[in-house]
């Protein structure tokens, strides 16, 4: 039984790792090796110079766009945790006659496809003068209904005893939240933080349209330059893909234990 379990998991794990293998293999090989009629398991010699070629390609500012993505993702993650955390707590714990209205508005955003409100959103943001601007990249993405909803569900289950103890110490809602609730919810914040970071890092359509100057490109936009119909450099494309996912893989492997712990604490339970 145990053997079977490990066998099944190992097969699944191999299948899950194949795409990563392909990204690396294709990124470090030569185009001849990729297109050879018989399968090249691993390039004859690893072409490290492919990295140099990628990072020195004048048409694609890889380094700059990685930095931009990092800045945007960090700001969006911090901003979302701050704003949506507060809102989720308010909706869960502070009774108010409009709290249901706000909650329904939050849930409704989960069902409305963002792709179709895309153009009006752009017009609003460009009216504010935020095109090719860090504000345009970061701010519209801060107000995530999904994150707020998850926070609310989580705070509904937060142990009331802890909050009441804080109340007795004379803390208001604000003090209770920052001194008691947040420090006791680090795991959950970390979990939602990872999700927010990944979502932000992997965004494509919005940065494509809003980040117009080359200086404000994010890594996904840079990646898409390799896909322009007139010439695909397959090797560079895959190498760029590898470079674009590397930071996230590191973040994941380092933080995934928090993730499970954090989600375990979530409000998906009621």
């Amino acid at each position, binding site marked *: 039984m145990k053997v079977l379990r490990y066998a099944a998991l190992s097969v699944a794990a191999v299948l899950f790792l*194949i795409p990563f293998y392909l990204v690396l293999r294709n990124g470090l090989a030569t185009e001849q090796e990729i297109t050879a009629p018989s399968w090249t398991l691993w390039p004859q010699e690893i072409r490290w110079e492919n990295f140099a070629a990628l990072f020195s390609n004048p048409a694609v500012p890889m380094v700059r766009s990685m930095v931009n993505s990092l800045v945007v993702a960090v700001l969006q993650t911090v901003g979302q945790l701050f704003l949506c955390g*507060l809102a989720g707590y*308010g909706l869960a714990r502070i009774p108010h006659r409009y709290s249901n209205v706000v909650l329904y508005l939050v849930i409704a955003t989960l069902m409305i496809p963002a792709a*179709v409100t895309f153009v009006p959103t752009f017009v609003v943001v460009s009216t504010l003068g935020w095109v090719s601007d860090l504000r345009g990249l970061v701010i519209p993405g801060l107000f995530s209904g999904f994150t707020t909803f998850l926070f609310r569900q989580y705070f509904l289950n937060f142990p009331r005893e802890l909050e009441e103890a804080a109340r007795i110490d004379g803390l208001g809602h604000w003090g209770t939240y920052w001194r008691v609730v947040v420090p006791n919810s680090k795991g959950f914040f970390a979990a939602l933080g990872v999700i927010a970071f990944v979502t932000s890092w992997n965004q494509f359509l919005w940065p494509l349209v809003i980040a117009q100057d080359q200086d404000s490109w994010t890594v996904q936009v840079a990646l898409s330059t390799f896909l322009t119909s007139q010439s695909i450099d397959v090797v560079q494309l895959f190498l760029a893909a590898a470079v674009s*996912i590397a930071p996230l*893989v590191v973040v994941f492997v380092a933080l995934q234990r928090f993730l499970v712990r954090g989600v375990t604490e979530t409000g998906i339970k009621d």
Partner: protein
Amino acid sequence: MRHGRAFWLFVGPFAAGLLVFVYVPIGWSLLLSFFDARNTVTPTEFVGLRNYADMLTDAPFLRSLGTFSLFALFIVPLTFVLALALALLVNQISFMKAFFRSVFFLPTACSYVVASLVWKLSIFNGVRFGLANTVLGWFGAEPVAWTVSTSPPWYWLVLVTLRLWLQLGFYLILFLAGLQRIPQHLYEAAWIDGAGRGWQTLRYITLPQLRTTSVAVLLLLLIAAYQAFDEFYNVLGTDRGYPPFARPPLIYLYYTALGSGGQDFGHGSAGAVILTLLIAGVTLLQGRVITR
């Protein structure tokens, strides 16, 4: 009053942003759906419900709604069962648990763009050196044009495996978290009562205990199925547009509203409203769950 001020202190900044960056565009789109809004977002010609009538009789749009209802019927249970099965397996082992969890969760780090590249150009390309065709070749089979062939429609295999790879890890984590919350004593009590360790505990303890997690997962999966866009766009889309096969409603609307050679926001927005109502209807049908 004290509550009132505190409530807005907590919720106000978020609510204001939601209003400006989410609800103004939504309201704007809604408005556009009642206008003849070609190549403009400041239309002047009010047409009432005509855009809705057009979309509700538009054969390609209706076909894409139908296709994606079928897609949802298929992908939702499939993702659900596989994620649950993997979660159960991972939960039951102790050695290398973190390793397997990491491996299954890792694809979540990839963007749809990257995954589409790998699937389209490396695994399922139609020539001899594609991975899938190489494997077929070992068995002496001819190369298959995975993304082109419509009989059988192999492109569904491409798109479904891609979606599974990208999404399974996230739902696996949700299930794992749910499993870890099940009190061990429930199992022990069941075993004492003579329940078998396999199917029976799963049927009578695990699944009922996972009910809330399951409902949330189903809901998220359902919304994601109807809102499919990225991998379809990147795998099947070409510089000549998108073929009439496996065309998600959002892609059809995207080409209507932002296609080259004419942007039609009236019809695009009307279609979006119809799609939203459909998603809301289906989710309501699926369970009155989410608000609690």
